């Protein structure tokens, strides 16, 4: 019989080994899935994980991976604070959308003025503000009414989706767009375009900001008192109370950080790769980022790698869809399995597995 024995301290070895184990496990399970579909599993795995980095067209795919990873990392970094402290902002997708709407509104208000030095920074501020405002709704309701933040933040995702659809045909619709939905293309307006900073690398302002967020979070969690409070609350909210942590302030701060980063991620996306406010703008990055946060073990460096890996499954996955006619749903299942595997093998970190003789019962 197998028994689990709780470790006093999480195993350092397994903290690093489990994500790798989970990825391998997912590859095996995914391979089985591809084989069931009648596709060559090795070929599929190679198309997803190898070709975008080192294949024939890697020069095109590598920048795409960076572009795809940037919003995931930004959002996941923001979520990691709250998740560490047991505060569940599940609605980052909504904050991402509202950030995009607010940032884009600033650019469209100034159109066609040529003043990038002023407009682009203002857009960033508006993006952050939009995300923060949207995140404040569940945060304040939680603090003042004890309302469940998971459900409120989630309901607000649906509201945000309705809003972006409404704005794309109403307030923000492109007046020169022949009556079609969608705003002007921010990517084609020099004051607002979030273009590549180095041609052909995929590195735009969002990528730079994501890297900065990773470093800043690393420092805050390791050195700053706030980081200590977050960790303490996650381990035991009672102990945190004794240590003088103001629980309400912590909730609000965590939501400000996650909302702000989700908002700015939305802004960089709408001014860059997406280009316009459109009903199809939401791409579920806000939800995928939750996987990224867990896959990265809520650690900034882990999230960096997890974000790149997840972006790879998107880019490589789409390539596999096209090249091998693999249904697009498979990639979603694949991501679900990745999270399942990671959560399962996590048991090794916190518990010791013991094989003991079965007791008569």
């Amino acid at each position, binding site marked *: 019989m197998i028994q689990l024995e709780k470790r006093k301290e999480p195993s350092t070895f397994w903290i690093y080994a489990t994500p790798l184990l989970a990825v391998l496990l997912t590859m095996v399970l995914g391979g089985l899935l591809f084989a069931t579909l009648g596709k060559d599993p090795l070929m599929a795995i190679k198309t997803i994980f190898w070709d975008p980095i080192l294949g024939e067209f890697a020069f095109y795919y590598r920048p795409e991976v960076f572009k795809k990873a940037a919003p995931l990392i930004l959002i996941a970094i923001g979520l990691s604070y709250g998740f560490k402290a047991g505060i569940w902002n599940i609605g980052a997708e909504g904050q991402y959308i509202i950030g995009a709407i607010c940032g884009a509104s600033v650019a469209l208000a100034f159109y066609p003025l040529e003043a990038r030095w002023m407009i682009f920074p203002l857009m960033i501020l508006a993006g952050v503000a939009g995300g923060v405002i949207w995140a404040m709704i569940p945060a304040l309701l939680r603090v003042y009414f004890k309302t469940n933040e998971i459900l409120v933040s989630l*309901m607000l995702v649906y*509201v945000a989706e*309705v809003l972006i659809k409404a704005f794309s045909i109403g307030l923000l619709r492109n007046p020169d767009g022949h009556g079609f939905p969608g705003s002007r293309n921010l990517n084609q307006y020099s004051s607002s375009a979030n273009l590549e900073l180095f041609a052909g690398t995929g590195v735009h302002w969002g990528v730079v900001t994501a890297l900065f967020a990773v470093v800043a979070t690393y420092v805050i969690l390791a050195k700053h008192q706030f980081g200590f409070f977050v960790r303490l609350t996650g381990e035991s909210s009672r102990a945190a109370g004794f240590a003088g942590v103001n629980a309400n302030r912590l909730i609000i701060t965590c939501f400000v950080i996650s909302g702000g980063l989700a908002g700015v991620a939305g802004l960089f996306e709408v001014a860059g790769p997406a280009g316009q406010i459109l009903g199809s703008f939401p791409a579920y990055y806000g939800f995928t980022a939750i996987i990224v946060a867990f896959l990265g073990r809520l650690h900034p460096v882990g999230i960096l790698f997890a974000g790149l890996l997840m972006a790879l499954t998107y880019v490589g996955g789409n390539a596999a869809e096209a090249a091998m006619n693999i249904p697009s*749903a498979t990639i979603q299942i694949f991501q*679900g399995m990745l999270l399942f595997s990671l*959560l399962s093998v996590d048991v090794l970190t916190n518990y010791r597995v013991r094989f003991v003789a079965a007791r008569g019962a």
Partner: protein
Amino acid sequence: MIMDINPILLASAIMVASTPILLAAIGELVVERAGVLNLGVEGMMITGAVVGFIAAHETESTTLGFFGAAVGGAVVSMIFGLLTQYLLTNQVATGLALTLFGVGLSALVGQGYQATNQVPVTKMPIPLLSDIPVVGPILFRHDGVVYLSLVIVAAVFVFLSRSRAGMILRAVGENHDAAHALGYNVRRVRLMAIAFGGACAGLGGAYISLARVPQWVDNITAGTGWIALAIVVFASWKPWRLLIGAYLFGGVTALQINIQAMGLDIPVEYLSMSPYIATILVLVFLSGGRAPGSLGRIFHASS
């Protein structure tokens, strides 16, 4: 124009629109009363929707379809059950993973069934009762699943408040360590609750793909599972309040589409977010209940 809305037909439509939410919510209520937070309702619903559709399509029997949906929902809920109860994973994250997985899986297995037709679910008007003016058409001219959902709610109410098994389930949910010390098998109780929740969610999903639409298309449940979760909180974990919550939400949904059809000069694009705003308001102002004591906490018997 306002005359065009027939209140009797509207009330009847609300019953139908609310049934999937009600079914999923009553299952989740039992799960949460056992101290487990399963955020994967949406994933289990969509699995039920596709399994139910396929089963009904292949056997040409909607009864077998619903049966298959319940089994499908329960089976997929066991992934969550095994991970959270045996591998002691975080329930929030596991529930989210279940939703992701379920949505993907259903899209994959449902591929060959997109846009195919379905035998219709037959209405079962209840003799005599269905002839009562006003009340008859609203309450007693539905298909069997609408009645079943009400029966399940009543049964859960009796089970939780009157039966010994229900008492054990509540004890497990309130304080799993104490329940364990009293000799109850916390894990087994919770697994059974999770399976029941999965079966109910599956039924709810199948009601969408078999009765309300009836068709299979990717992502057909479109967030209903999340609404069900919200309604459990709104109901303060009490079965009878669940009815109010589900019908309230179904009511707002049905009403907004009817208002649109009347041609009133209001910005219709904003109307469609009213159900979600209503849910938030309801959560804020009307939910005063206390969550089960052990909700969402990992149980690890150290002895």
